């Protein structure tokens, strides 16, 4: 398929954009990446996502797909014969993966954002503790989903790995700025090792922004695209 048939409108630091790019990499799909200036959105973006005017947008044969996790599912289905499956094959495992992905976007995301917006040391401490509680739950989910294998998806990166792993850059920035360890050997040993593996994976490493670059960008909360 010609490269120009597939475009991604995005912003490199965005975890949501990363999700789309990881999925396309897993499926070995060539695409054109169009970096948006969020202060001055392109005509193409406004036309392709008139409802939200947000990135990422995947444009495949001129048809736009919006919302990062919906894009991931679309990529999995549209290129189903190419590369490994992103969603698990069993309906129950799929439901578990979707459940935790929704949890990540709701509870994890708001807990992470609360650290950024916390005023004063007390509030910050409370926000960090809240985030660690969320991580402990995700550690449990990791143990159950991975069943001893390296990723939530098993031997390979899957839907939930992508959903949560895309936030690792921002997690590391938060650790750096607040001088705290969020993933550690005691509370989240599984996730700690998983994070290393995820970031080193071939489908991820070229699209994971460097922590230092993200830290410079970071004024307040991570970009919500």
């Amino acid at each position, binding site marked *: 398929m010609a490269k120009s048939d597939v475009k991604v409108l995005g912003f490199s630091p965005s975890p949501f954009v990363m999700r789309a790019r990881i999925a396309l990499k897993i499926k070995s799909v060539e695409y054109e990446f169009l970096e948006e200036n969020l202060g001055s959105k392109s005509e193409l973006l406004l036309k392709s996502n008139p*409802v939200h005017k947000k990135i990422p947008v995947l444009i*495949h044969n001129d*048809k736009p*797909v*919006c*919302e990062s996790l*919906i*894009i991931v*599912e*679309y990529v999995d*289905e*549209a290129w189903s014969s190419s590369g490994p499956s992103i969603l698990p094959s069993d*309906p*129950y495992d*799929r*439901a*578990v993966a*979707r*459940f935790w992905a*929704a*949890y990540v976007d709701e509870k994890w995301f708001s807990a992470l954002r609360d650290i950024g917006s916390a005023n004063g040391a007390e509030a910050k401490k409370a926000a960090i503790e809240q985030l660690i509680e969320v991580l402990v*739950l995700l550690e449990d989910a990791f143990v159950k989903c991975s069943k001893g294998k390296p990723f939530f998806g098993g031997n390979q990166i899957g839907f939930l790995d992508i959903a949560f792993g895309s936030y690792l850059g921002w997690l590391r920035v938060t650790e750096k700025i607040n001088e705290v360890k969020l993933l550690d050997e005691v509370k989240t040993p599984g996730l700690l090792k998983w994070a290393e593996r995820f970031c080193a994976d071939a489908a991820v490493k070229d699209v994971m922004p460097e922590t230092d670059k993200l830290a410079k960008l970071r004024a307040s909360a991570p970009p919500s695209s």
Partner: protein
Amino acid sequence: MAEEVKLLKTWSSPFGLRAFWILKLKGVQFDFIDEDLSNKSPLLLQSNPVYKKVPVLIHNGKPISESLVILEYVDETWKQNPLLPEDPYERARARFWAKFGEDKVLVSIWNAFIKQGKEQEEAIGLAIETLKFLEEELKGKRFFGGEKIGLADLALGWLANLIGVFEEVIGVKLIEKERFPLLSAWMQEFAEAPVIKESWPPHEKLVTKFRAIREPYVAAAAQPK
């Protein structure tokens, strides 16, 4: 194989209704339990420890939570009368509108319902802007799913009865026929569809319930500032 399907819901929850609808539409044999949320059953707490909310679907002892996750699970497990189309692009669109319903429509309508005074005026304005997207999406279609009820219809179906309830409680029309002819027609068609029409909770009971929910917001707004 003896199939055991149990649905935990409440008499009034629109989220629980979605799961109820899809099971009925597919002709799945199931039991349901209407929970008392002020006194949650051990089964509910054990089946959804993360959120402790309804609905929960328990299929052969395995629990699935989050209504939109349940919809996709049921659609994948019982293949008759499919809710989602085959084509990946159409599936992505259905999921987009279901998510839009959740993230934008539900939130904006709820704000219009609970807010008071000037804030309510603004909230109503925002809700109407949000609903315009739905009106636009229905052009040339009988249902969001096209000729027949699909995922987005079940996700948005709560509009068909709860809008009337909210309008009665706040004394403001949110979906006027002149402004939203397609949406109004869809609400009526959906409300009267086979299976759906037998499922609606009693109107008066809902009015009483939501009036009571709104009370504290009215009282708070009446406090001298």
